[in-house]
């Protein structure tokens, strides 16, 4: 893992929760959408918050795809969940929101989970299609 790849993971981590938050702000403005009027979901896209949220989610998607090309799904998802912690800490120190004890425990658990997964390998090496499809375990990779 190079510094540049950690940077891509950081973009995945930050843009996803920020984009989701903007979407929720936008949908609060739009109000309830009825099953009979699903087309109003299309018009909801014109809301500024939703538009900005979508722009952030496009950045998220591009960096997410890049990261999946060199790391496992089960590495990328927990590793980038640190974004939730960043947003919570931003809310506390920037917006002066209160963080309950339960949230602090949540922040600790996510940080511990990110620590666990980033200590291990980021990618499961697999044999080429001409060989068997079985993934190689770490010990076998080291032997090679």
């Amino acid at each position, binding site marked *: 893992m190079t510094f540049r790849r950690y940077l891509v993971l950081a973009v995945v981590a930050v843009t996803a929760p920020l984009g*989701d938050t903007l*979407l*929720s702000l936008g*949908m609060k403005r*739009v*109000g*309830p*959408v009825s099953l009979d009027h*699903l087309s109003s*979901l299309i018009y*909801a896209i014109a809301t500024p918050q939703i538009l900005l949220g979508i722009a952030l989610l496009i950045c998220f998607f591009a960096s*997410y*795809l*890049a990261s*999946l*090309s*060199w790391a*496992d*799904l*089960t*590495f990328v*998802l*927990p590793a980038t*969940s640190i974004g*939730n912690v960043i947003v*919570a800490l931003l809310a506390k120190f920037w917006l002066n929101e209160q963080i*309950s004890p*339960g*949230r602090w*425990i*949540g*922040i*600790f*658990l*996510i*940080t*511990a*989970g*990110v620590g*666990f*997964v980033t*200590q*291990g*390998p980021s990618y*499961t090496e*697999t044999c080429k299609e001409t060989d068997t*499809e*079985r*993934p190689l*375990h*770490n010990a076998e990779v080291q032997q090679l």
Partner: protein
Amino acid sequence: MNALFNGQGLADAAMIAAIVISATIGDVLLAAAMRGIGDLDEIRARSGMGGAIAAVLGNARFVSGVFFMALSFFSLLFALSHADLSLIAPAATSLTFVTNAVAAKIFLKENVDRRRWIAALFVCAGVALMSL
């Protein structure tokens, strides 16, 4: 307890299930597509940004993955307009960590070792607690 079994509880569960299932299918298809395509940095170095974009957009698994991600996105928008963000977002996000770990092990043959299971469960619980 009754809240779980009344109409609103079931509707919430159905909306969360729709988001989780479509997001998991989308994630697995996208990961399978990107694994098949290979390292995007190498492809970009070899055939430029246009080549990398063409390699991604021309992949059938990628297109199917985007379809399911879009389904998940509109399910999320629909759910957010009916239920609170504090219920839908953490429930859907945390459950997706676990379903993705199971699906990645079964379909992508990823080496989901004890470390990754613990990470998935910690993050799942952490995201749920963050909503309190």
